[in-house]
């Protein structure tokens, strides 16, 4: 079904976490923060469509 989205989010999470660790180890804390925020925004943008679709489905099924 919609398993792709979950795996995509997990992949982004793993990549961002590894980058975060690497940047922190090499004393670039500000870049680490930026990478974390960028990852969060990317994932949020991916999810927001799904939530909008959920709300549309509920609206159409229950006749709002």
């Amino acid at each position, binding site marked *: 079904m919609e398993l792709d*989205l*979950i795996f995509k989010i997990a992949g982004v999470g793993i990549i961002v976490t590894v980058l975060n660790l690497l940047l922190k180890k090499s004393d670039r804390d500000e870049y680490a923060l930026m990478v974390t925020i960028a990852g969060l925004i990317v994932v949020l943008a991916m999810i927001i469509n799904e939530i909008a679709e959920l709300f549309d489905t*509920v609206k159409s*099924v229950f006749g*709002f």
Partner: protein
Amino acid sequence: MINIVSVAGICIIAAVLCKLFGSVGSEYSLYIKLAAAAALMSALILFISPVAETVRSIYERAGADEEYLTILFKSLGICYITQFACDICRDSGESALASQAELAGKLSLLILALPLFDSLSEIVSGLI
């Protein structure tokens, strides 16, 4: 038919991935939870349509007012959305936001049901 095996698989995989991000990057576990819940719910809500059709036809056969059934289904939808928001908020540890969502759901249900109170009081006064 709901494919219960794939629903169970998605739930278990999402739970495992949530645990994977448990200590490092805990915000991603919230996102995974949110995505899995939204995807599953929007797939499952579609199965309510045939049920709703059946209930509607039974209701029509009984000769009751169609308007009441619409209110009933609307309130069911509000309940589902409120429950979704509430659970997500509570899972991410924000119980204050969860109770606000609950309050909003209760209030909107009450507002939706107010016309019913009106018609009930009319019926009662008609009986008297």
